[in-house]
């Protein structure tokens, strides 16, 4: 089942491979069908998933696959390394509370992405093949439970992303693509080192051999004493944690490593921005929750404060940078830096509320930011510009668009009743609960105000007031005295058309529904999160009360 959902897009890609490049419509429809099927599978998985099973780590003495679900585990690569014993790399898939939401999100965003790539005219065939490759890689990352497999998918993601930005991107695309590629590669190289180190430090209790299985790695009992990352070599464990953390933080992106994001977003075509912000950024924090923290819990305990500080920096700094942007898309990009900061903060809290808020924030940020980028794309299609000051008064002329934008913007600034609020709220609840991160939380609450500031300001400059004198559209008054506008060389419907609505309305519904009653998603997480917290902080738990 998981294999199916992972490799469905690849199959679609192969089908597209045989479709002649001239048959653009067929290519699009094939991809769309694949994405929809993926969505159906995701829903089936969601239905099958039993939220009472924790996952995260194998119960001591229990089954080697722990309480993971929909397990698929077969030996993939097996070589005999002589003195090192057999090298076994498994094809090991499974879901738990951490993955399931991300799987749902990925399926959803893939559908949205395919829909929003409909207008792409340049090398449609190659585009959709790469796109399908990308969505396979993302899905694979989220369900892989073998570190090596995870790494393979992780690297597999870079290539299509690189080309999708570098070929279908904006004027400065090569620079952005290279930057993205090198940055992420930089991170993943270190990941590789740590991965190998872990391999030689962990022994699967059943087979007695070294293993890449994350489930085994997550259990500190499986670390061999005296090995490089085993107990007894703390300094190496600290280094490994830091290195791994940097690797994931680049994807998040965390403050010093974030500069690839605005460039990539500004250059990337709309669907790619949607994918990038909707799913790829989550991989960073997902990796932290799945790999980085559970494998080095004691280092995490020591590093909470630092992570929290970086989270706060992301929040405030991203908000301020967004406040200064002229390019709408850049502003949204910085806003997602700021919002990923909430995730980091929640993770830093290390308690259930914080982690839950963080994971839920990952999901919500996926949907909300997807919506934001789609909306940016809408206006960019019409005006061929994203300069905030080049608009004004749009609300009078594009009421539906303005309405949807209002929903998305307010969701992004964390208005109660929209899903973003709940996650941010619980991030703060968690972060404030821990005495360590309490001051950080008190500082980063400012992010709420500045987030509202830049969003409302851009909303006002673009949609409210009157048409700016140098606006990018013509104003004309018809015989009834009603004002209309039209953009230069835009033939389509002025307000949102059917395709755009089919993309935006479901997202809006999800955002509102999850804002009012979050349990459908949150209920999937709680057990796993509580388990994760136990794994992370056996000490801290006894400390509280």
């Amino acid at each position, binding site marked *: 089942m998981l294999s199916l959902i992972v490799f469905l897009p690849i199959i679609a890609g192969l089908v597209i491979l045989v479709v002649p490049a001239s048959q653009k419509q067929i290519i699009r429809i094939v991809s769309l069908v694949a994405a929809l099927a993926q969505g159906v599978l995701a829903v089936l998985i969601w239905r099958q998933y039993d939220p009472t099973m924790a996952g995260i780590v194998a119960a001591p003495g229990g089954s080697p696959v722990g309480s993971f679900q929909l397990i698929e585990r077969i030996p993939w690569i097996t070589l005999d390394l002589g003195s090192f014993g057999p090298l076994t790399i498994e094809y090991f898939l499974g879901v738990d509370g951490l993955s399931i939401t991300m799987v749902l999100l990925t399926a959803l965003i893939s559908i949205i992405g395919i829909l929003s790539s409909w207008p792409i005219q340049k090398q449609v065939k190659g585009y959709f093949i790469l796109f399908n490759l990308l969505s396979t890689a993302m899905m694979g990352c989220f369900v892989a439970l073998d570190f090596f497999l995870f790494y393979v998918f992780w690297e597999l993601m870079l290539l299509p992303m690189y080309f999708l930005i570098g070929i279908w991107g904006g004027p400065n695309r090569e620079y952005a693509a290279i*930057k993205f590629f090198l*940055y992420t590669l930089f991170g993943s190289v270190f990941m590789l080192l740590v991965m190998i180190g872990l391999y030689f430090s962990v022994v699967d209790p059943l087979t007695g051999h070294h293993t890449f299985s994350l489930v085994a790695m997550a259990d500190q009992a499986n670390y061999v004493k005296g090995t490089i990352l085993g107990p007894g070599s703390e300094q190496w464990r600290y280094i490994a944690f830091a290195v791994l953390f940097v690797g994931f933080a680049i994807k998040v992106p965390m403050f*010093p490593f*974030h*500069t690839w994001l605005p460039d990539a977003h500004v250059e990337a075509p709309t669907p790619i921005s949607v994918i990038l912000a909707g799913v790829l950024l989550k991989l960073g924090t997902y990796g932290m929750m799945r790999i980085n923290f559970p494998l080095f819990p004691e280092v995490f305990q020591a590093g909470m404060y630092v992570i929290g500080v970086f989270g706060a920096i992301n929040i405030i*700094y991203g908000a*301020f*940078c967004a*406040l*200064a*942007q002229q390019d709408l898309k850049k502003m949204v990009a910085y806003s997602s830096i700021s919002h990923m900061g909430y995730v980091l903060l929640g993770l830093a809290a290390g*308690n*259930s*509320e914080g982690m*839950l808020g963080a994971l839920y924030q990952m999901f919500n940020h996926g949907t909300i930011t997807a919506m934001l980028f789609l909306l940016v794309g809408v206006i960019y299609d019409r005006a061929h510009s994203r300069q905030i000051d080049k608009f004004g008064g749009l*609300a*009078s002329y594009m009421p539906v668009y303005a309405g949807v934008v209002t929903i998305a913007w*307010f969701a992004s600034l964390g*208005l*109660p*009743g929209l899903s973003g*609020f709940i996650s941010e*709220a619980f991030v*703060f*609840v968690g972060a*404030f*609960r821990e005495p360590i991160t*309490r001051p950080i939380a*008190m500082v980063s*609450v*400012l992010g*709420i*105000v*500045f987030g*509202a*500031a830049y969003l*409302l*300001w851009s909303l*006002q400059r673009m*949609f*409210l*007031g*009157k048409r700016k004198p140098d606006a990018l559209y013509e104003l004309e008054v018809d015989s009834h005295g009603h004002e209309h506008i039209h953009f230069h060389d835009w033939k389509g419907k002025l307000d949102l058309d059917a395709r755009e609505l089919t993309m935006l309305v479901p997202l809006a519904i999800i955002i509102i529904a999850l804002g009012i*009653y*979050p*349990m459908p998603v*949150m*209920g999937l997480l*709680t*057990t796993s999160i*509580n388990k994760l*917290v*136990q794994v992370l*902080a056996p000490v*801290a*738990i*006894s*400390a*509280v*009360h």
Partner: protein
Amino acid sequence: MMHSLIQLSIAVLLLPLLSFVVLIFFNRRLPRMGDFVGVGLVGTAFACALTIFWQVVVQHYDPAFRVAWEFTWLDFGNVPGVGPLQVKMGIVIDNLTAIMLAMVTLISTLVHLYSTGYMQGDPKYGRFFAYLGIFTFSMIGIVLSDNLFSIYMFWELVGLSSYLLIGFYFYKDSAADAQKKAFLTNRIGDIGMWLGILILYSQFHTFGYREIFENIAAGKFNMSNGWLTAAGILLFMGCVGKSAQFPLHVWLPDAMEGPTPVSALIHAATMVAAGVYFVARIFVLLTPDALHVIAFIGAFTAFMSATIAITQHDIKRVLAYSTVSQLGYMVLGLGVGSYSAALFHLLTHAFFKACLFLGSGAIIHAMHHEQDMRWMGGLYKKMPWTFVTFSIATLALAGLPLTSGFLSKDAILAGALGFAQVEGGGIYYLVPAFGFAAAVMTAFYMGRQVWLVFFGESRTHLKPAEEHGHDAHAAHGHDDHGHEDHGHHEVHEVPWNMRLPLVILATLSVFIVFSPDPLDGGKGWFMHLVQTPATVVASTEAAHEAASLHAPEAGKLLAEAHTDNQHVEAAATHQTEGHGPVYADPRQAEIAHMTHANHFPAIQLSSLMLVIGIGMAFIVYVFRIIDPDKTAHSIRPLYLYSFNKWYWDEIYDATFIKGSMLISKILAWFDANIVDGIVNGIATIFRKFAFANGGFDKYVVDGLVNFTAFTVQTTGAVFRKIQTGKVQTYLLMVVVAVLAYFAFYIAQLIK
């Protein structure tokens, strides 16, 4: 099985939401843009609320009445370190809730009705009712919710609806600015409130009022008492934002950019009162220090905004500042501990201020969106209904006896006096002093307003044309009030659907509605039903100090906590006289007692203030003994200071707004040049290295290759001389070779 009241209250909650949903999607398809939907649904909600009110207030007339219902909203499962953790949402109905519910829905219904006339013909007519619907929904949510989390959610939703309604004429830049300003200012207050909530949650892992209070009462608050005070003050910040208290008061006057019914509903009666309501909800956990802060902020706000109101020209701005000032009164009342008086004032103020705003709306409507009082005048004949209701409400606001305003304001001032005495005078007398000063000025500027608007000659023609055209157009915007003639036009009374709300609200501003005794609200049903709850913090205070100190000192501290014995005895006698409940906490008991004791001094003082204020208004504007303009000239700096609202906007703009913009610019520059610069720098370094490497490769490694190529080439060039391409040369070679063979052969022979 839910209590029938709960079911009713849920209906009250959801009906306005339904109206919002219907109208936001279908307003264009419905006849009359569906205003009847809004009015009908909210009216139904009001009917339900009235039923609740009847059952709660009239049927069981019981101060301790309380019905609660809750459901699990979030289930966190078995949280490590906490155990099973759920976030519950719920509804609590007690007397205060019932009264607020009735008040909110009543005013909302009236405003709906009024808007059918006022907003007539606006292109976004239907959407206006939709916004009113969502506002009513979230306001009722605030009233009903039984925990901090849901009240925070509705709190922000109220902010949203206020944002939408202020910006209803969003094509006006002023409106767009105002809505943004309102939302952001409220956000600042909200983060304070949120932090307060976080402090409480981090201790008790619950958001419910009940649980929190019980936990505090049980001394489970594990942090220092300072944190508790901080929590109180932070929660109060939410009220500072919503109720436009200093220093976050700046948004409310600008919010008058919204349509006048909105000003009446949101920015006078209900939303701004929500802050006070919220503080009342959390009143019991406010430590004395927190209460002092609250009292002083309230008093200062009341005074400051009153001074500002004196000099404003815009009819709505005057009312706005008077609203701020009255809210200051309520906050002051809460701060000094006269809880029920403050809430009483909240209720009465809601009615007469709504009436005033709707009246001003009627005037503006009649004057074709003329808002400047300088160009009004002489309207009392033309608009008798408006005039009468407006004046009644004015008197109520000024606090004339026989009006509702008198009862509540007097109670607050009495409380202030009592508070000052209990706290031991000195600086604390500032609080009542500010209160009374504000009372004077309230009377004065309301008198001024009434006179300018209704009496004298019509001054419409005095208006400078260009200014006139300007803001008239601004106010007009898109709505199709066809004729643009701003000369003399016929001012006529407003239609019935705008008159009726005025009449109802004016009626509700009379003392008899609230209390049989025109001089003592304490005898009224409100004061009986809504009584100051016993505080829960003093006990924890004692517990903390007892825990932290040795027993005898702790005992001493407790003794000091009761300031001196005679007050304690007085408090005891106070109980016996049968006013209000028994207070465990000595301080609270004393304040209650002193309040009661100061009842009559307060009446005398405030009546005196009233006379002074209205008298001055008469002297200045009616008999013209003092020419206001000359006076303004003679005290120009003061006048300007007041006229420019103490320059708060300018100060904030210069500091916070400019500051944060500057920071954002700096950080953006930092991001683009330093951070990204470092990244690109590293990239450049690598590229440079790559170039160097490439150079080595080119000149050394490749050099060797090229060298061989060169040698081959040169030798080749040499040999090419031989390679003449002539057969003969080759033949020559052959011959030479043959001769060489001969030489070899001969050498062989010689051997």
